[in-house]
């Protein structure tokens, strides 16, 4: 965006495909790491809530407070403890997934019809068999909806980690983009992160489709 130069320079993209690919890879890795750990933590929290339903309010309340702290501020609050590191970025990213994931796991499990649980009990399923083989499969669409929301949110938030020295597509937006007044790099980063969000969303939808064959059978 310097006078006399064209705003967009497609040649730059072609010349820097390696760098762009590397940043895209980092972005995917940071997102997958955050959503996977977030899912494990949320699942643990959901099991605790099922054992002690009174925990629901506090867990959702605290996750809600974390969720409403702006990303740069949450990174900044962690820096005195974990420094300017990938760990800081990932702790914050995981924190942001909790609200959506815990809420959807609980909603999904609560939506299992009581007669189905009775039937499973009558068939002699143990508590954990019931959870894994009856309740979770029925709750899966709601849980996957949560994972989709968490993934799309995380893909957006990963860009902000470029401000604390991490990479991802945010590096293209900030470091080689905004800080050098270079629109081509900015747009490359933005377009790729939107595309990544769309692809991830569709991929998760496809996974849900494959994991719930009975829903397909009912639809046709």
């Amino acid at each position, binding site marked *: *965006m*310097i*006078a006399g130069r064209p*705003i967009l320079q497609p040649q730059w993209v072609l010349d820097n495909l390696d760098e762009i690919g590397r940043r895209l890879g980092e972005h995917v890795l940071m997102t997958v790491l955050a959503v996977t750990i977030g899912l494990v933590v949320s699942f643990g929290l959901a099991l605790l809530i099922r054992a002690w339903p009174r925990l629901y309010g506090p867990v959702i309340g605290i996750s809600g*407070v974390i969720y*409403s*702290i*702006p*990303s*740069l*501020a*949450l990174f*900044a*609050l962690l*820096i*005195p403890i974990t420094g*300017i590191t990938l760990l800081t970025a990932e702790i914050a990213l995981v924190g942001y997934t909790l609200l959506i994931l815990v809420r959807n796991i609980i909603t999904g499990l609560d939506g299992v019809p009581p007669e189905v649980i009775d039937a499973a009990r009558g068939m002699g399923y143990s508590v954990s068999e019931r959870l894994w083989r009856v309740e979770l499969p029925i709750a899966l669409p709601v849980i996957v909806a949560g994972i989709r929301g968490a993934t*799309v949110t995380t*893909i*957006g*938030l990963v*860009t*902000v980690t*470029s*401000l*604390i*020295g991490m990479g991802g597509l*945010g590096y293209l*937006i*900030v470091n080689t*983009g*905004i800080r050098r*007044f270079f*629109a081509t790099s*900015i*747009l490359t*980063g*933005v377009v790729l*992160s*939107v595309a990544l*969000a*769309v692809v991830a969303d569709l991929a998760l939808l496809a996974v849900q489709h494959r994991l719930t064959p009975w829903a397909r059978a009912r639809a046709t």
Partner: protein
Amino acid sequence: MEFLGAVFAWFTDPASWSGRNTIPLRLWEQVSLSAVSLALAVAIALPLGLYIGHTDRGSRLVVAIANIGRAVPSLGWLGIALPITLVLFQRGGLGFLPACIALVALGIPPIVTNTYAGLREVSRDLLDAGRGMGMAELQLLRRVEVPIALPVIMAGVRSSAVTIVATATLAAVVGGGTLGDFILQGLFVNDQPRIFGAAVLVALLALATEMVFGYLQRRVVSPGLGTG
């Protein structure tokens, strides 16, 4: 403990309160940038949402565009705002203008989609009754649809306000100042008390915004509706 002392020292340092880089100035930058952006977002999104909600014309297109807009990361909007500012206003620099453009763009989708959804939820029977009473379309909108849809519309405004205030922190990247500027300065010179102190202020501001707009949202339930 030593660290918290250093944070406290930053809060009480006279340099944090007078001069060009003060806490009140940065706070004011964040609040005013957010307020102006929210006002503009409402001014654009509300009429648009009311129009497509009342007539259902062009609604698919508008809602689809709004959903794509939502997939753009907030930092992405700040980046895109730079070339947009250059093309629209022939100004290439950093500052309030690109920050404001980005925040308005971020603030529009939640208000449009909620206004549209709120209006579409109004029962067709009520609209027919209104028409039967001889109400004109605008009267219908003002006296039937909007009062019923207001809590949903306000939920959109709240979500927009929270996003705008949060992203205003990032506006420091394009020279918008705000409390986020302290965080970037602190990262640049490795001044952790400044980073942490500013982050606490940002978090409090975000939570306060959430609470104020949550309160407003509950207040606007029309007396004819509600649970009572």
